[in-house]
């Protein structure tokens, strides 16, 4: 035995000396390690901050859009088509509808641009500007806005009415400075006179920044980017989420109940278990391939339909709901089951009357997490054709539609980057806001349910 392991005082002194010698180095390592942890957390938090800062700073201004207010004269000489056809004059509803269509077409063909132009010139009487450049100031959908006012109320014919029309995307860029104002003329989207007029209008209040409600009420638009909105994408997402909730929750809970409470413990059950765990980790794009091959190619369901999107997302969400419900079922104390069984309840009664109600908060949370995840999913939807440009609000789950995340994808690819970077960020804010809302609902309901339990 050497002195290195001598117990007692002699070795004690030697050991203490050696321990002491190592202390400086070890405490330095400790500090370094701790700092590595702090830095990692700072980095993670920093990423969250930068991500949200970027999206909010880019997206929020987009909710206030430059709008031109002026007086429009609905000139009877310019508006064609005559009075609106009456139902009584026609034999069948079909004939009447055709006449209305003809009338609307004629009205639409009228020179609405002239009406817009006249109105704008009235607002800036002394300003010299070419017609083409003047019309660049407002969105090209402005004329349809006036037309729709006339459709809604043909009585305005011959009257002067105050109207608010969105400025064009380029005007908005110029006024908000999202385009570099110091760039030379040839790099600017708008003519110098248009830019000057825009500045003048902003100063005298003809152009103001109004809350852009149309982001929520309009559909996507290519010809008039300023009016592009999310209503179509929102409805598409809504239909899909309804499909997901209606299908995924009952099926998911039912499979979880079966697997956890009834299934015999054998190889088949094991296989299902492994299978579900793996399904939860299958890349979402593979579900898109499944949807394209099975739902569209094999069953012949329509492309771009929210129903198909909803089915694909249902299959994707199922594992999440099954796994979470099973975890919730497992957390129910066995004593509860034994108590119910002991009172003579059947196995089914025990599960459905006593065990399952205990899991509602867990199931609810899982559902919301699953739905939120499905709401943000993009890749599989691209494969089933939901990335097409859709100019209508889908009226049902079989109509062509797009979805909020897909709309984000489409907008970020738009050539008018200056305008659509902000618009995309705004769409992201809406999407994240919806997810936040879902989570808030989940937390609220959960606390209510838990209080009652």
């Amino acid at each position, binding site marked *: 035995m050497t002195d290195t392991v001598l117990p007692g005082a002699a070795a004690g002194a030697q050991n203490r000396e050696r321990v002491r010698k190592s202390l400086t180095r*070890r*405490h330095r*390592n*400790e500090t370094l*390690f*701790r700092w*590595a*942890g*702090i830095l*990692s*957390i700072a*980095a*993670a*938090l920093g*990423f969250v901050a930068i*991500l949200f800062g*970027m999206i909010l700073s*880019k997206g929020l201004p987009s909710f206030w859009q430059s709008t031109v207010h002026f007086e429009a004269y609905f000139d009877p000489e310019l508006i064609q088509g005559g009075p609106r056809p009456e139902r009584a004059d026609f034999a069948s*509803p*079909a004939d009447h509808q055709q006449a209305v269509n003809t009338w609307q077409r004629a009205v639409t063909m009228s020179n609405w641009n002239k009406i817009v132009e006249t109105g704008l010139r009235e607002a800036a009487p002394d300003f010299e500007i070419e017609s083409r450049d003047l019309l660049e100031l407002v969105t090209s959908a402005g004329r349809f806005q006036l037309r729709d006012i006339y459709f809604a109320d043909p009585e305005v014919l011959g009257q002067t009415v105050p109207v608010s029309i969105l400025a064009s995307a380029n005007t908005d860029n110029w006024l908000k400075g999202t385009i570099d104002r110091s760039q030379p003329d040839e790099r600017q989207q708008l003519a110098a006179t248009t830019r000057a007029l825009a500045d003048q209008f902003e100063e005298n209040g003809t152009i103001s920044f109004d809350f852009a409600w149309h982001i929520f009420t309009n559909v996507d638009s290519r010809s008039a980017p300023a009016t592009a909105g999310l209503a179509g994408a929102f409805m598409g997402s809504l239909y899909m989420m309804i499909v997901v909730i209606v299908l995924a929750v009952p*099926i998911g809970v*039912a*499979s979880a109940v*079966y697997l956890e409470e009834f299934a015999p413990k054998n190889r088949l059950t094991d296989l*299902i278990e*492994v299978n*579900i*765990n*793996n*399904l939860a*980790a*299958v*890349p979402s*794009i*593979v579900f*898109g*391939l*499944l949807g394209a*091959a*099975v739902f569209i190619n094999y069953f012949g369901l329509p492309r771009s339909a929210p129903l198909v999107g909803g089915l694909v997302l249902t*299959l994707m969400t*199922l*594992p999440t709901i*099954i796994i979470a419900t099973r975890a919730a079922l497992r957390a129910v104390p066995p004593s509860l089951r034994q108590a119910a069984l002991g009172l003579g309840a059947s*196995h*089914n009664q025990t599960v459905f009357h006593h065990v399952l109600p205990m899991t509602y908060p867990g199931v609810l949370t899982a559902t919301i997490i699953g739905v*939120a*995840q499905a709401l*943000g*999913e*993009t890749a599989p939807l*691209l*494969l089933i054709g939901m990335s097409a440009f859709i100019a209508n609000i889908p009226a049902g789950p079989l109509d062509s539609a797009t979805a909020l995340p897909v709309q*984000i*994808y489409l907008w970020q690819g738009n050539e008018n980057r200056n305008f659509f970077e902000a618009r*995309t*960020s705004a769409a992201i804010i809406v*999407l*994240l806001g919806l*997810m936040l809302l879902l989570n808030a609902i989940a937390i609220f309901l959960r606390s209510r349910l838990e209080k009652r339990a």
Partner: protein
Amino acid sequence: MNALVIAALLLVLLTVSYQVGWSRSRKLADGKDTRLHSRPIYHGALAALFALLPAIVILGLWALFSQSVTNSFILAQLPAEVAQQQPFEVQAAVSRVQAIASGYGVIGEPTPMETAAASAYASFQQLSFLGVIAAAAALGAVGLFWAQRRIAPRLRARTEVEIFVRLALIACSTVAILTTLGIVLSLLSDALRFFSFISPLDFFFGTTWNPRFQSTGSGSAGEYGLLPLLWGTVMISIIAMLVAVPIGLMSAIYLSQYAHARVRSVVKPIIEILAGIPTIVYGFFALVTVGPFLSGLGDVIGINIRATSALTAGVVMGIMIIPFISSLSDDILGQVPRTMRDGSLGLGATQSETIRKVLLPAALPGVVGAVLLAVSRAIGETMIVVLAAGNSPVLRANPAEPTSTVTVSIVNQLTGDADFTSPQSLVAFALGLTLFAMTLLLNVLALYIVRKFREQYE
């Protein structure tokens, strides 16, 4: 109207049959010594099942086939040459007849033949609807009759209802299996069709990816070498792991071992926000912020970094995966028994020594499993790479250059009008199969490792 009638029929069937089952079984029990095996509500439920199921089956069949039956009926009313036209013309003719029958009318004057067909169709429609309703009601009544005849004190109504419920539960749990089966079969069959155009050798070992779209109708099928895509995928995943593993693991360690409970309860949910953000948002973030930042950084230090590159996509994907790694690691570190930690601290180890030399080695299998799961997630990730990797399927070692991945190519090949016959679209399924196989392998391995790890401390 029709929907209302159907709903009313079902509702009536439901109430009547439930009531019959309930009251008959009660009557049996009343005043006699016989005890019912099941409570009356189960007799009611059983009777309702017997009555409703056949009716629903009839209505379901009608919903499935009414379209084609109607079409062939209308065509039978119209002259034979109508049916020989192009499909869309046939459909237009049928729609006209339906429009006239509904009273909406058509543009212009309907031909006498159309009017005749329409009136025939209208009465057929009425008749067939009545017939179906009657059939459903009759079958429901038969079911109910049979059910109520079976009612007896010893009838195990509850057991039968429970068997039915059990069957419904089993049917639901097969959905998950069918999904997997559907994925495997559809990927396999379409991938095999692709391999009938292109040899698997050329696909798996080809070094050029250039699937020309057949716009000119020429026979050239393009080149479908997987390797550039696979390399892009691997490179981006490696970069993502280099970002996510150190940050995620160190955050988990700090939060679980050093931070105060209050700090943890604030910081943890904030980091987990990153996990809830849709990937398309990360893609946009990469495109608008991270890409230009990295490119600017490259300019400062004198390296040419492209804004859309493997580096950009990898870094952003790493950020996305941080919460995944950190929450899994947190979970796994929590599984290592506290006594292990105490043992080390009790010997005079510093906290970092305890973590590095005891906790981490003990948790290593679990952490490896978590990282494998994260890798599988990284290689399956789509939107970030679609937006930020630059879509340049060329074999290149430099991560600062644009690249492409398996997922990006799937999206590129299958968006637009997929016809499922050309190799250009079908290759997506071969790529999907490769992706599925890779992720499956990683997942099975990871889950196995994690499971073994858990068992060790249970």
